[in-house]
């Protein structure tokens, strides 16, 4: 691993006791970038820097942030919404950023709002994160007191109001249009697209929705230039990224690493290897929605394109490792159950399909499966995600339904025999 700057976690690593406080933030150079940018840069210049940085959204879809900002419709008012509804199983990186370095996010929010011409920003934090929300709220208040937020920020004439909004417990609100609905006080159901939020978002006004991690990178990018950022990491996937390691690794937790490592380095070197030095069975590379990788993928590079070529994605950066003792059907069932529980219920394939999948897997787990269930599972998956290809085609409004398909296609691809062995009578028939 070559040396790289710790973009997101340097402050919290160096100052674990008070990295969340304004004094420490200012003492470590915080809000300097903002001061300079507001007074000396034009909004378009910031957008240019972010475009040059080629930073991909860290929420899961990995859409380049700069390009997203460029889609904004020329209508006032505009809104910036920070997506802190981090609910993807395996993911806890935003929690750390919110809890440990909220000012870094707020500086990013102000810079972004300035760049896109928004005077109102919302930080939507999931309801189960009261502590991160408290810390952000405290930071927002401190920033208001010091004039980093509010009217005429730092004498630049730019106004910005920031509100922290707490969710109510719904994974689907991580989908940007569902999040906007939730913020409007509606059910968190994804909207039909188009129109995209950049054209018709919050209150039907142009809106940019970005992930916490994405925006936390902005101060560094503006301070050091987009090219400097683009120089870190791999060719297409640039910068550093926070990965959340969990499951059967020796050292779970968040790590900031440059893009372009191999999975072996991430799991064995950084994650410390598998617990009890067991064999690695499989891992989920990018949150519960992502298709699984197995040992043969260990040397795949951790970049957007390489993972896509290998049939999965980096998603939210959650790496869930399963060792040889894991019952893959049980693991897949648990993931499908999650999606079935979190389905918003508005469109048919997801509402009915995920529940049905969950119930079939439950039958398998309880040794009550039927030989026809293997085909049935795959066919139900096909009804949600025709062709079972990656990236998925969808019969649904949003990608939640196809996300529930990933673990099933994964176990069918990599562990079909193990699945079949759970169906009474199937292997006898096959061997006869």
């Amino acid at each position: 691993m070559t040396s790289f700057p710790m973009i997101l976690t340097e402050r919290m690593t160096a100052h674990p006791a008070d990295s969340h406080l304004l004094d420490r933030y200012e003492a470590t150079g915080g809000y300097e970038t903002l001061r300079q940018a507001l007074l000396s840069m034009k909004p378009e210049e910031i957008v240019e820097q972010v475009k040059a940085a080629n930073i991909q959204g860290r929420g899961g879809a990995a859409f380049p942030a700069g390009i997203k900002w460029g889609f904004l419709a020329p209508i006032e008012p505009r809104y910036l919404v920070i997506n802190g509804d981090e609910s993807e199983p395996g993911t806890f990186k935003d929690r750390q950023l919110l809890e440990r370095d909220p000012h870094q996010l707020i500086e990013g929010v102000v810079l972004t709002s300035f760049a896109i011409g928004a005077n109102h920003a919302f930080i939507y934090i999931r309801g189960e994160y009261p502590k991160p929300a408290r810390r952000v709220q405290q930071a927002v208040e401190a920033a208001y007191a010091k004039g980093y937020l509010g009217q005429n920020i730092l004498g630049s004439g730019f106004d910005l109001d920031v509100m922290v909004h707490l969710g109510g417990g719904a994974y689907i609100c991580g989908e940007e249009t569902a999040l906007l609905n939730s913020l409007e006080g509606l059910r968190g159901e994804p909207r039909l697209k188009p129109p995209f939020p950049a054209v018709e978002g919050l209150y039907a006004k142009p809106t940019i929705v970005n992930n916490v991690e994405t925006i936390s990178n902005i101060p560094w990018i503006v301070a050091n230039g987009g090219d400097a950022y683009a120089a870190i990491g791999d060719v297409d996937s640039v910068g550093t990224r926070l990965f959340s390691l969990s499951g059967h690794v020796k050292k779970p937790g968040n790590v900031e690493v440059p893009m372009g490592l191999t999975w072996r380095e991430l799991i064995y070197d950084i994650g410390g290897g598998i617990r009890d030095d067991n064999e690695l069975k499989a891992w989920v590379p990018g949150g519960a929605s992502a298709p699984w990788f197995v040992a043969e993928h260990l040397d795949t590079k951790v970049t957007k394109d390489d993972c896509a070529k290998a049939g999965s994605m980096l998603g939210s950066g959650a790496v869930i490792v399963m060792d040889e003792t894991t019952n893959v059907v049980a693991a897949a069932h648990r993931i499908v159950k999650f999606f079935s529980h979190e389905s918003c219920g508005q469109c048919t394939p997801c509402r009915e399909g995920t529940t049905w999948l969950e119930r079939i897997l439950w039958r398998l787990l309880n040794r009550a499966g039927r030989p026809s269930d293997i085909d049935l599972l795959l066919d139900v998956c096909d009804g949600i995600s025709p062709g079972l290809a990656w990236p998925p085609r969808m019969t649904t409004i949003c990608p939640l339904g196809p996300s529930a398909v990933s673990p099933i296609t994964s176990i069918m691809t990599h562990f079909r025999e193990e699945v079949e062995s759970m169906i009474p009578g199937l292997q006898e028939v096959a061997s006869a």
Partner: protein
Amino acid sequence: MSVATVISDWSAPNQERARTLLEAYPERRSAAMPLLYLASLEHGHLTPAAMAQVAELTGLTSAQVQSVASFYTMYKRDHVGRYLISVCTSISCFLMGADDVLEAIEEETGTPDGTTSSDGTFSVEHVECIGACGGAPAVQVNYELVEGVAPERGATLCRWLRESSPEVVVTDEMQKYFGGVRSFDWGITETVGAIAPVPAFGPYGSTGEESA
């Protein structure tokens, strides 16, 4: 109709908070979600009367408010115990043995998953991922997090809650005595915590000062 007349049965600070919330958003309707938390806090849980009040405040119909409230898992429309214990059973916690933790907690509290104990002390529920996967298995008490909870520690936690009946539930305190491995280092010790099964954020359900 003025805010005060609609929620005249609320405590004065909460009335004030409701008024602030209504003014804070560009559109009144957006205040529905925070107001629902506030109403839960006022009424113990989200009663029909509370939903009707929120409807009146936000200019929605009661049916619409009910529709919104029922979408989100954290708005409890049934009675909730004093301590809401949420055990994460999603994939990461499951891999690390969350089912055993849930079982131990159910046993200790005598409260099966999804129910409230008869004395109103505990509500036990399993929840989907609460973002503490590095510290799996994780448990929340009134949405205050404890990570690395082994089954027997989960049981001890419940016993402690029942016996010492803390007014305020504080993450760091619980983590110290009942927690294990954490997702990441928290750096400091806080005294802020939840006073009710409502997230301890800003206007609702919190107490104490955030401090270093």
